[in-house]
Every structure is written in structure tokens, then in C-alpha cells.
């Protein structure tokens, strides 16, 4: 039997959060953490968490499992469980709505700040705005972000300044549009990032790389933004 400890908090009835222990029969299988949560849900239907696609595409079930952020649906027990014990908490640093469900408004507000869409006021061509294969290649490692928030909520700078530091996820998206040959707002985008908080609160500790379930590298993208800002300012 797997020992599972789940963070419980219902702001309507609880004065403070607590941990609740469950025993789960995994049948000796190397289940995903989401499967374990489903088994717990069958024991106690009040346990709340987000989920949707269950295959690492939608980014709904970002959780903190045994101290490390990740997607519950693609994290096998063998990867996270030590000593037959699994501790599941909500993503750190964001307000808890209930149990494992967090309020992601601050995360989305930072995403919105980077204007995550192409800005190009030139007349649209008849079919589409074409890119060379080389220019398209520059977007690899950037466009794959699914906004699960695992990286930003593993970043201490985002914990301390979630309202002012854009965070690794938002900055990866910022660079995705800075690097796009079809986007014409590079200078405007960089102007909006040149303050002491938006980009420069990144101290390069690389928690974001360590936890990204898609294997992306926000620290490298932040380095590219910094270099663009430096080239523009000197």
C-alpha cells in the first residue's frame, strides 16, 4: 500500500490547511500520480484537483509532488516516490482556492503583460505570412510551453514578486515573440521589459529548467532577452 499525504484546505470550512493521509493500493503497478489521485478521489470525493487531458498536453494538473513541481498525469510513481511515501501539495506561491487547486490569476496576468501574440500591422498576404525554415527553427523550444505554471511556481523570484517579475513561463513566451521573424514590435516589447523587475529578477538558479515537464529552457530564453536589451541599450 502506498502512503499518500494530500494537502487539504477548504477556505469555507477550514481555519487553516492540513495534510490528510491515504492508503492507496496501486496493485504493484507503476501508476502515474494522477491515477493515484483518481483512486483517492474514489475513497474521498471531496478531494479537489484540476485535470483534463491526462497526457501532458493541457497543463491542468501541475502539482508539487514530493517537493518537486510537475504534471501529475505524466509523472510515474517510480520517478517521484521515495520510501513508499508520496506527498502532494498545490503549486507553491499561488493562493489556494481549495485543496490542490490554485488561483492562477497572477500567473496569467504576467502572461498577458508580454503580449503573447504576433504584432504586425502590415497588410496581411493572401495566404499566410511565410517564414524561412531557419527563422521557423528559432521558435523551437519556445512555442511548446503549455502554461502549466510548474516553472514559475518553482522560482523564488516569482514567489517574492509575482506581481512584478514576469517569471520564467511568461519570459519564455516573451522571447518566443521577440524571436519571431513575423513580429514587428521588437523595440516596443523590449521597452516594456527594461525595468529592474520584469526580467532582471531572474538570478539564474534554473529551477525552471529542472521542473519543466516539456523539457524547455526558460533560463536560456531569459538570457537571450537580456542580451537583446543589452545590445539595444549600449
Amino acid at each position, binding site marked *: 500500500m502506498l502512503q499518500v499525504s494530500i494537502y487539504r484546505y477548504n477556505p469555507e470550512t477550514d481555519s487553516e490547511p492540513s495534510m490528510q493521509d491515504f492508503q492507496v493500493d496501486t496493485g504493484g503497478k507503476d501508476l502515474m500520480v494522477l491515477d493515484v489521485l483518481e483512486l483517492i478521489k474514489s475513497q474521498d470525493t471531496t478531494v479537489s484537483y484540476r485535470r483534463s487531458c491526462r497526457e501532458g498536453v493541457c497543463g491542468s494538473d501541475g502539482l508539487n509532488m514530493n517537493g518537486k513541481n510537475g504534471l501529475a498525469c505524466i509523472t510515474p510513481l517510480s520517478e517521484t516516490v521515495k520510501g513508499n511515501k508520496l506527498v502532494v501539495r498545490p503549486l507553491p506561491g499561488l493562493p489556494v482556492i481549495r485543496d490542490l487547486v490554485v488561483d492562477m490569476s497572477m500567473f496569467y496576468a504576467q502572461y498577458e503583460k508580454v503580449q503573447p501574440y504576433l504584432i504586425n500591422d502590415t497588410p496581411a498576404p493572401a495566404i499566410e505570412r511565410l517564414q524561412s525554415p531557419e527563422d521557423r527553427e528559432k521558435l523551437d523550444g519556445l512555442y511548446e510551453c503549455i502554461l502549466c505554471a510548474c516553472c514559475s511556481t518553482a522560482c523564488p523570484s516569482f514567489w517574492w*514578486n509575482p506581481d512584478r517579475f514576469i517569471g520564467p513561463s511568461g519570459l519564455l513566451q516573451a522571447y518566443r515573440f521577440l524571436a519571431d521573424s513575423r513580429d514587428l514590435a521588437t523595440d516596443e516589447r523590449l521597452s516594456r521589459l527594461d525595468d529592474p523587475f520584469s526580467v*532582471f*529578477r531572474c538570478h539564474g538558479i534554473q529551477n525552471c529548467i529542472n521542473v519543466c515537464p516539456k523539457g524547455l529552457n526558460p533560463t536560456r530564453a531569459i538570457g537571450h532577452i537580456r542580451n537583446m536589451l543589452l545590445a539595444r541599450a549600449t
Partner: protein
Amino acid sequence: MVRSVTSFGRSGVSDWLLQRVSGVILLAYFLCIGSALVGGVDYLSWRDMFEGTGMRVFTLLAILSLAAHAWIGMWAVSTDYMTERLMGKKGNVLRIAFQIACSLVIFVYVIWGVQILWG
């Protein structure tokens, strides 16, 4: 864009660049002082070393670099941990008091350093 009136250069890239450049200057200065110490010094050789204008200018550059480096670092620490978000309204009072105290200490050290070098 986040506004800040207390950061050193009012710009992220300016503070970032200054912190790196001042770090390199400090490294070079401490290597220079370290190599002198390793070679063995007494009062006379130490005094002779600081009699030269070049060493005095280098030392002043290191003092100013230390001042800028310290301000940028302490400012970042204060705006991370002493905030209204973490501590309520008293966070603002504490942060401003901390920043004033830091700036006073840095100012005194800079003036004192100049006095030692050219006094």
C-alpha cells in the same frame, strides 16, 4: 513596465551591467591586493604602494564599484523580502528605513575611503 525610483540606474539592464562590471573591477582589485599580501608586506612597502596615484585611483575605483555593487544587491534583497505583500504595511516602512540605512552606510564608507586615500 514596472516603475522604480530607488533602483540604482532606474533601469534593469543598467543595474545588471553595472553589477557585473563592478564585480569584475572588485575581483581585479582583490587579486591585486592578494598578490601584494602573498608577496609579503610591511608598513613601508604598504605605504609606498598607496603613495602612487595609480594605486589610489584603482582603490577609489574599487570603492565606488563596491558602493554601486552593494547598493544594487541590498536593494534587490530589500525589494524581495521587505514588501507589503509579505509583511503588510510595515514592510514598506521597514524597506524604506533599510534602504536609507544602507545608503547612509555606503555614503560614509565612500567618504571615509576618499579621506584615507587622499587625506
